[in-house]
């Protein structure tokens, strides 16, 4: 059980990293258009 004493903080840090990455992605506008990219992938071949 003692493993949790360092596993839990590590998990929290990893979680925090993902939250920060998500925030950066949102601020860069990655989620602004959710309709177009799924269409685009079908047509862009070059």
């Amino acid at each position, binding site marked *: 059980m003692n493993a*949790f004493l360092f596993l839990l903080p590590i998990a929290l840090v990893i979680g925090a990293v993902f939250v920060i990455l998500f925030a950066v992605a949102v601020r860069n506008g990655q989620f602004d258009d959710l*309709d177009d990219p799924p*269409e685009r992938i079908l047509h862009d071949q070059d």
Partner: protein
Amino acid sequence: MNPTPLLGARAGSGAGGTCPHCGTAVEGEQDAYCCGGCELAAAIIRGAGLERYYAERSAFPPRPEPERATHWRGVPVTTASDGSCETRLVVDGLRCASCVWVTEKVLQHTPGVAAATVSYATGRATIRWRPEETDLPTLAGRIAALGYRPRPLAGEATPDRDLMLRMGFAAIAAVAIMGLYEGLYAGWWYGAMDPRFAALFRWTSLVIATPVAIWCAAPFFAGAVAGLRHRVPHIDVPIALGIAILYVQGLVTTIIGQDGYLDSLAMLVALLLVGRLMESRGRRRAAEAATALAAAVPRTVRRSRENRIEIIPVEQLRAGDLIDVGRGEELAADGVIVSGSGLLRMALVTGEADPVQVAVGERVVAGAILVDGALTVWVSAVGDDTVVQQMARQVELAAERGAAPTSVDRIAPWFTILTLVVATGTLLATWWLIGLQPAIARTVAVLVVACPCALALAAPLAGASGLGAAARRGLLLRSSDSLRALATVDVVAFDKTGTVTAGALAVVAGDDATLRIAAGLERYSTHPIARAIVAEAARRGIPLPRGEHVRETPGLGIAGELDGENYRLERGEAGEVILTGAFGEAGRIRLGDVTRADAAPTVRALRAGELRVVMLSGDRSEVAQDVASHTGIAEVVAPADPAGKASWIAREQASGHRVLFAGDGLNDGPGLAAADVGIAMGTGAASSVLVADGIVSTDHLAPVLAGIRAARAMLRAVTTSQRWAVGYNVVAVGAAVLGLVNPLVAAVLMPISSGIVIWSASSVERRVRRAER
């Protein structure tokens, strides 16, 4: 790879070929272009090395029309630090994915363009270019040459990044807390955890849950506060109450060393935010469509002063100035013509589609479009003083209606009161029967499971789904409130010109032989009558011959040689053109406004849906009756002026009906504002779009029907899922009163109830498809 066209001829191929660009039948030559526009479009496409477009497209493009001069100089352009310019436009007429593809690639291959994307979903183009190599009018011209119509984009709703961030954080937090709580729940069966570790798990959960309750859920608290302050019932009140109780309970249980509802809290907030996001996305799309249409109003004018022409923003224009107006431009001010002549379409003001001939000395109004010719106008009124602005202001005044609380909002106070009563009852009864501690536990459980999460999700999810279903069929609605109003409509009133009819010049009568010769002469002309004649010949599948020695005299007519004979095409009586050959008159073609092709089937389907269909027209009674009988509309109110239409609608509403009104011109504005649901035809006046609840984005009437179907499907989906939600709350509260609910039960029940609501909301599209069959 050898490109093989997927498409055959557009209509009756007969002898000869078809236009390789737009598929119109052409006489004689194989692979001859039907007009200069198509030839240019094809040259641009081939020049950019995009022949693949012809092999892959699934719909013919529109035939390129002479570009309607737009005031590109007034369009906002952002300049980056490296000197490149960027702007966003709307492109109309994109019919298939290949259209989008070819537009995007042609822009990318244009010299001076740094980057260009065209959205498949919204037809929005984002272009970045180097200003020293090219400019916006050139780029817009390239799009127009392909046959698509670029338009400036006025203000744009920014996507709600803040809401997305809150939702994402809540979702990540929910997963983390769920993992920690799973460990705690497991302890219920496998023997309690070491208290030190249980405390570690609980406190960690509390740390993660705190920003969820305070920051992520802030929009719900703000909504609840606003609702309470304005004494407007709002579903956010019981939701905020539920979230607050969940958090306080979690805080207290963590301190005293028990399991709380923190996992349910985070999941609930995340789900509610998903609902909010869906709602705001649908609303944003509709708002963008509306602003895009409104942007058609000119923002710059050409002022002529001391024989010099200067381009100035429309705000700087003063009464007494002289302005130049070219073909295809929209008048920016009221005034009197001092020189020139031309064909002016005043549909915006009068609602009539037919252009009228204007000459020196006549009064003209802002918003009119110069279809042909050139004018110099002495400005008499600008800005807010123009006739069109005065009408628009009346319309805006009429449109100022507060947003009605939704059905969910209306039951919210009862919901809150009932929850508090049941909670108090539980507290007192359990305290008296069993004791204080279980009494508090049960009361908290009641308050927790009574949180109307599923109820709050039902409307936004079904609403977003319904808005999407309507939008896919060509009706863009402003909000799910409009959709809700649309579901209960029982009278459908249509304007005549531009709504039941196409509102544009088209051939009404004329035999094939006359049409063939006329089209051969007019093939390369850009005059509206010429376009109408060629379009009709193409529609009937008459292969286009090629006239020789064609001479066009503006304002008079066109002459040329065809089949070795000389022909002249001239304007006859109102709405008629006369074709004269060597031996006198060879035929006549009547032009006018025709009913939309889908008007009759739409009216039939509406009446089958137990709706009363009425036509309100400003035109003479006989004309209106004629159009009505063609389309199967039994009830006609004509002639009715703008105020008359609005008061007719008000009378119907007073006798208990709920009225949908669809119209196009500014003269329909008061009616659109008065109706329970006002729908503007997208081809109509920009200002009518501003007051409307919805916009038909295609050249059809059927989207109105599709919208009603989507609205009814949405209403049924909402009703079904709200019943589920209420049923769940009753059962869960009952269980909580009896002491059967603990954090684990809540954590299992809540996602199940929300899942059922989501499944039910997603049934809107299925229901609409069933109605269409």
